[in-house]
């Protein structure tokens, strides 16, 4: 584990060195680290945000100094507290409750999945096989970012890996389900994007009027279910 300043008001904790060897284990380590840091309630910490193999700790330096951090070594003071918090990490690992996977209904018709044909051609399958493989797997949310509520999902079948488009689209509709490299994800709001869109869900992935504002959070398990156009329309109306 390595702790590096991310500017003068945040620390980046690199939890895992070899993410690709075991992405699932990396995710568990990251989440356990996040929970242990939250439980430690270190003074001056503003927020804690996980990513693939790192956890970022944002802090307010004057508040940390008021709480006893020496002004000439705020980082060292935090490092010690982070290490203390993580020495108890193992106890919190086993306590996580396994939630059932969240089911995401997706209409894979060409009108919504405007890159499905292209993806099928590139991976050498027909469109139905692509949909079957996409709905047949279970995924986990590795992190949320890009735009509010965008889940980066690991667990895509390797047969479906498709590079991002050379030129990103200026506008991808909200709810678009897409493949980018070895990952799949869902665009929560209308935004530009470079992933290959294969379908659309009627579910709302981001709603700022709710707290938390997202449908999916890091660690959640996800499955896709293929729906027909009329079910899509019933769900959105």
């Amino acid at each position: 584990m390595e702790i590096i300043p991310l500017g003068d008001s945040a620390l980046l904790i690199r939890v895992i060195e070899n993410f690709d060897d075991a992405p699932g284990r990396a995710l568990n380590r990251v989440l356990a680290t996040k929970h242990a840091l939250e439980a430690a309630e270190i003074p001056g910490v503003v927020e804690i945000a996980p990513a693939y193999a790192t956890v970022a700790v944002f802090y307010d330096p004057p508040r940390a100094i008021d709480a006893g951090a020496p002004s000439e070594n705020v980082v060292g003071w935090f490092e010690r507290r982070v290490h203390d918090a993580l020495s108890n990490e193992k106890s919190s690992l086993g306590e996580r409750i396994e939630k059932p996977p969240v089911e995401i209904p997706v209409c894979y018709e060409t009108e919504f999945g405007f890159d499905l044909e292209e993806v099928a051609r590139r991976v050498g399958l027909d469109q139905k096989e692509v949909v079957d493989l996409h709905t047949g797997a279970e995924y986990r949310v590795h992190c949320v970012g890009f735009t509010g509520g965008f889940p980066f999902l690991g667990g895509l079948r390797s047969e479906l890996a498709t590079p991002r488009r050379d030129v990103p689209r200026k506008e991808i509709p909200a709810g678009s389900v897409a493949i980018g490299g070895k990952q799949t994800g869902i665009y929560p709001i209308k935004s530009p994007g470079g992933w290959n869109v294969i379908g659309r869900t009627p579910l709302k992935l981001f709603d700022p009027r709710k707290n938390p504002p997202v449908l999916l959070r890091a660690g959640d398990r996800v499955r896709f279910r293929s729906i027909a156009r009329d079910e899509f329309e019933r769900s959105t109306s």
Partner: protein
Amino acid sequence: MNLTAIRAGFLTSVQDLGRPGFREYGVSLGGALDRHALRVANLLVGNDESAAGLEITLGGLRLRFGDDRIVGWCGGEFKVRIGTASVDAGHPALVRAGEEFSIESSSLGCRAWLAISGGVDVPLVLGSCGADLRAGFGGFNGRPLRDGEEVRLGDNPTRAKVLIDNLRVERIGRWKPPHDWSNPARRVPTLRHIRGSDSDRFAETAHQLFSGESFSVSADSDRMGIRLGGPMLERKEDADLLSEAVAPGTVQVPPNGKPILLLNDCQTIGGYPKIAHVITVDLPVATQLCPGDRVRFFEISIGEAHALLLERERNLEQFRRGLELHFK
């Protein structure tokens, strides 16, 4: 009572100190790009320092208030008037009901923050009144103000009422904060930074160029980040990293070698290596950079960065105490 935007200007949005606490859901910090400027402006008018105000980009704003208000602003070298009288940055001023208040063009810098006594009254969304313009929520209907629109203001707090009374003749208070708080734009801007969290991913020449050369601000800069042109900063490898947190002040370098200085509306995570992080107390200078401006970078230690930030906080506390005199 309301304010009316007779002219909304190029890009005017409601902003406060942003919405920390939602990064894990991919929600940007947002808020005033120069948080310190908004805090100072709010204190000047008798508001809580976190009250919502207006962020004005490139000016062109003309306002009218439904009742008497104290206003205060900090930012670039803008021409600001009440009727025909000029109001300098950092001075609280009384605007009578129906008078026109305008933030015109700027001769240096591109943004200003305006505090109005009572604050702008828009709904709190995810803990902030600030507009997230990229995602389209918060602030005033999730978007910039438009010509002719009316926006609600909070009631004048008692302190502002005292100031309205005290300034009824003079109109403009003579007191002001330190010059670099009210007028952060610089003719020859140098941004101090600490070592980047991925500095070992850059060739030695990249570090030499970054600290030795000047960079030009590109026209496609916005609230997400300032894109810089100049010498190409060579990375040791082409591949990007596994996405990890970035923050306002982070200087990241995409494969084309042209650095991007991230600001408050940046994404919460990114995969480009980070060559530097501009220190918090220099972000006000950064947010005034206009397309075509040149900027240099200078490395300091994180201990120095913290000392500077602590000193500014202590000075702000002193300034806050000094202001009490005028609210009596």
